[in-house]
């Protein structure tokens, strides 16, 4: 019995392959977009974790020597004195960074490398093993060591044991630095007694790469979710229609004695199988999307935040599994109503595919009320909500509310058009378009969400770019930056540089709590560099001259938001009150920051000496000066930063960011276009009874086809007009609510009218392309098929 029932159910798909195609492709595309974005995210996150675990920077205090290298004997003395330190030897080999660690004493072992294999551990300790990504290993010469490809090691880094690193870097008896474990014995001998030449550098604050990149990931995830929502609209439409078209079969099956429960179970299993197939296809497509996008994303993230992303994709179980789960979950969500209705459907209920398509019309009032309620909720959450959940709640209420409002608004617009129609054809066109609206609602909602996502994400990314380039100008205003290792070297450097550049700008800072929040106090030299480049988000009149005159301070946005500090408020630095005269954007920083003039800073913190210098000079002279500093002071490359190079690279990275979002935009629009195509094709078969009388009364089939295209363009344009404010609201929510709640800073929002116009053109093109096939089909409908409508009616 089950077999016969299943055969009858499945036969629907054989006879309606286009519907099956819609369902599978809709779900596949939705899954592909979701899992593609997730794959990129997972890959990038894994790379940060690898970087963090490999380098251990920022997590632990480091012990360094003023002399540059540490004697191995000092390390042994420290261990004997009870210090929990671990040796690190670091250098470059074939242009690749070689890090030697001691797996037995390092707090993280050998970073992300799994040493649970006993033989491997013995090899590591005795024979020398290189752990690195395959790409990195391919770049190495033969060093007579065992090469172990390890995808979790940061790209461009080789991990090995200390002994091997010393041998290969000619550093026998010497170490680069020592990692100091967080927990130390209470009764250890003072460092000054054991190794007086060594100093402890505290863990770095505010350099946690993952926190900075979270902003990028959050936005990508939001985009992936929106794309998935677009896909789910398609799936919901396809499943609902499939149920309704199969209702006669379901009724017949039940009338012939097929039990209802088994029928529901069979359909649920059928949908599960379809969702798994579509999910698998989607995950495969997602992999291709991610593989295509990853090189650009890797460059984007590494350029923006300095985090290294490998640029090659691993097939990680967590994302393909999540892709499959979301495909199954999405189908379940889309099918829940239909399955519920089926389980409660009276046996004698008639099949009404067209009535199903028109169903939205009947519940319009209810839908409008729900839409208004959700939009009000979004506004209330925006105005009074706090926290990340409120931000996302606002986003969801806004999008769902707008999607539900779309058919209602379009209906009103079409009713208005209808009331203004002069000719009989125009009158029919408006009325007929209005009648088609419920059937096209889901596809148009998908288009609305796709376009809104495009407007929102493009606005966000473009605003991000403008803000960040401005920020780079502000923060890297000097052409060249130099970092000294200690105060003596700093003094020597300052003397050396003063005669060689236009201006030396010392950068000095002190850590201090402001209103209970960890903050850094900066004391820059009064100079045009700051006045011209540090732009305030809010400021008092003549803020810079007054700050330079010592009348007040400027603070970063994070401190202003978290400490609830406004312009004119007073903060206390080192016991002295300062009026806040300016608030500046400080993107990427996790803690508070205050700027006072150099003179005041030296009074407040007389013991602090600047170790960093910004140099104003001709950019063309930077390479020569860099070489001179390397030769005269032994400065490492990491102690010198060429601003022009960084800025050029950053701009290049932003272009790549655009490539990524552009590709995602095109894909989402394609999915929405596909939804329209499928809806039009489905409606086309149901529309013959409406079109046949118009044809019989003298409108040619070709003209009917053209009217179909005009209808699609009109609906796409109306949807685009509504998508624009929605997209801008979406961007605003991401930039001003979600970002602030998640990271503490707000990105300014810029508008890009030309980009929106281009998007509207794309939407119309997508609608025309989607309408072409059904219109052509209609124009070529055989008169005999149109006549059938009348014979059936008889």
């Amino acid at each position: 019995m089950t077999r016969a029932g299943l055969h009858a159910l499945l036969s629907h798909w054989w006879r309606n392959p286009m519907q099956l195609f819609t369902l599978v492709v809709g779900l596949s595309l939705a899954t592909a977009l979701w899992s593609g974005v997730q794959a990129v995210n997972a890959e990038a996150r894994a790379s940060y974790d690898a970087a963090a675990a490999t380098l251990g920077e920022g997590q632990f205090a480091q012990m360094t020597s003023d002399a540059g290298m540490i004697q191995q004997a000092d390390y042994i003395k420290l261990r004997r004195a009870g210090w929990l330190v671990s040796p690190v030897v670091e250098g470059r080999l074939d242009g690749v960074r070689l890090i030697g660690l001691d797996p037995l004493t390092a707090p993280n072992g050998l970073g992300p490398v799994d040493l649970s294999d006993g033989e491997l551990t013995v090899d590591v300790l005795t024979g020398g093993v290189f752990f690195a990504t395959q790409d990195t290993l391919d770049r190495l010469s033969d060093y007579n060591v065992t090469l172990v490809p390890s995808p979790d090691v940061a790209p461009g880094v080789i991990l090995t044991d200390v002994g091997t690193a010393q041998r290969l870097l000619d550093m026998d008896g010497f170490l680069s630095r020592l990692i100091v474990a967080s927990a130390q014995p209470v009764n250890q001998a003072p460092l000054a007694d054991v190794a007086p030449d060594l100093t402890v550098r505290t863990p770095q604050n505010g350099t946690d790469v993952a926190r900075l990149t979270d902003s990028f990931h959050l936005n990508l995830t939001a985009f992936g979710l929106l794309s998935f929502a677009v896909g789910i609209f398609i799936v919901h439409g396809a499943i609902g229609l499939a149920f309704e078209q199969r209702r006669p079969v379901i009724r017949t099956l039940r009338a012939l004695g097929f039990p209802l429960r088994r029928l529901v179970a069979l359909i649920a299993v059928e949908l599960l199988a379809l969702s798994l197939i579509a999910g698998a296809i989607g995950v495969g497509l997602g992999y291709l999307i991610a593989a295509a996008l990853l090189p650009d994303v890797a460059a984007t993230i590494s350029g923006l935040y300095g985090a290294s992303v490998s640029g090659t994709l691993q097939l990680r179980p967590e994302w393909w599994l999540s892709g499959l789960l979301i495909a199954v979950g999405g189908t379940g969500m889309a099918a829940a109503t239909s399955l519920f209705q089926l389980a409660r459907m009276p046996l004698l209920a008639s099949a009404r595919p067209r009535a199903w398509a028109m169903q939205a019309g009947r519940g319009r009032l209810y839908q409008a009320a729900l839409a208004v309620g959700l939009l009000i909720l979004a506004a209330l959450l925006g105005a009074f909500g706090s926290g990340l959940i409120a931000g996302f709640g606002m986003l969801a209420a806004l999008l769902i509310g707008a999607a539900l409002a779309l058919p209602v608004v379009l209906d009103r617009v079409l009713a208005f058009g209808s009331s203004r129609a002069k000719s009989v054809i125009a009158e029919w066109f408006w009325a007929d378009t209005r009648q088609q609206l419920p059937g096209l609602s889901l596809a148009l909602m998908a288009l609305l969400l796709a376009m809104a996502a495009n407007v929102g994400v493009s606005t966000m990314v473009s605003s991000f770019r403008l803000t960040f380039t401005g920020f780079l100008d502000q923060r890297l205003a000097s052409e060249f930056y130099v970092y000294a290792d200690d105060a003596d070297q700093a003094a020597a450097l300052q003397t050396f540089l003063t005669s060689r550049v236009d201006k030396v700008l010392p950068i000095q800072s002190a850590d201090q709590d402001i209103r209970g929040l960890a903050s850094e106090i900066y004391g820059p030299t009064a100079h045009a560099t700051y006045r011209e480049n540090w732009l305030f988000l809010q400021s008092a009149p003549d803020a810079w001259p007054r700050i330079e005159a010592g009348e007040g301070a400027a603070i970063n946005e994070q401190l202003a938001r978290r400490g609830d500090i406004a312009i004119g408020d007073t903060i206390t630095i080192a016991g002295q009150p300062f009026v806040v005269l300016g608030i500046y954007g400080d993107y990427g920083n996790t803690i508070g920051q205050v700027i006072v003039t150099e003179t005041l800073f030296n009074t407040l913190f007389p013991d602090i000496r600047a170790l960093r210098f910004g140099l104003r000079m001709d950019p063309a002279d930077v390479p020569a000066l860099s070489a001179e500093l390397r030769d005269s002071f032994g400065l490492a490359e990491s102690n010198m930063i060429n601003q022009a190079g960084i800025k050029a690279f950053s701009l290049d990275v932003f272009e790549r960011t655009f490539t990524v979002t552009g590709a995602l935009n095109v894909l989402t629009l394609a999915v929405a276009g596909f939804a329209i195509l499928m809806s039009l094709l489905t409606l086309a078969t149901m529309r013959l009874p409406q079109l046949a009388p118009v044809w019989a009364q003298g409108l040619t089939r070709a003209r009917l086809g053209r009217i179909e295209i005009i209808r699609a363009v009109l609906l796409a344009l109306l949807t685009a007009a509504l998508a624009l404010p929605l997209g801008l609201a979406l961007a605003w929510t991401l930039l001003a609510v979600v970002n602030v709640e998640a990271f503490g800073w707000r990105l300014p929002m810029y508008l890009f009218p030309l980009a929106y116009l281009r998007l509207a053109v794309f939407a119309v093109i997508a609608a025309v392309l989607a309408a072409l096939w059904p219109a052509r089909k209609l124009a070529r409908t055989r008169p005999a098929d149109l006549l059938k409508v009348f014979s059936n009616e008889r």
Partner: protein
Amino acid sequence: MLLRVTDLIKSYPGPDGAVAILNGISMAMDRGETLALTGESGSGKSTLLHLVGGLDQPDSGHVAIDGVDIGALDDASRAAVRRDKVGVIFQQFNLIPSLTVASNIAFQARLAGVEDADWTRDLTTRMGLADHMAKYPEQLSGGQQQRVAIARTLAARPALVLADEPTGNLDETTADTVLDLMLTLVAETNAALLMVTHSERLAARMGRRLHLRAGRVA
């Protein structure tokens, strides 16, 4: 007794409250009997047929098939009665559009697990459907589709055949041919046939007639 209907009452909700469709119908049928159910539109003929077939539930009263009160059964058991004992022929044919004629005809017999290839072949030949077995319902005329629906019902050899105006969509000549076939085959399988019809001419060819008026036996 194959079918016994006792004091059947059924009403449907209307804009001004419940509308009574059946007001205490009682009747009985045995194997081999043919009964025409006639009456004006809205007199309750189709409703009675649906209740007898277990497609709907009465407000009160009983329908017993082979002594089993189907009103007392759960949905799955009622489905089993429909599958094993009853065959319904609808006015709108209700064929499964995605299955071929051959699959449609064999369908109910397969559901009931009583598929008999020889009997099915014989049926289709006598119904004049042998040349159409690979076609889909939409490729057949109305008369041919109704013959497929009848063949589907009879292929499972049900004890009780319920037909709701099975020739209502057919012209007179085709209707006569279809009815001839149906009566012959019902007689051969010793089934009982309860047929709803508006046609006095067709009703006259049945063994008995039950005329309904305003939900009662007239």
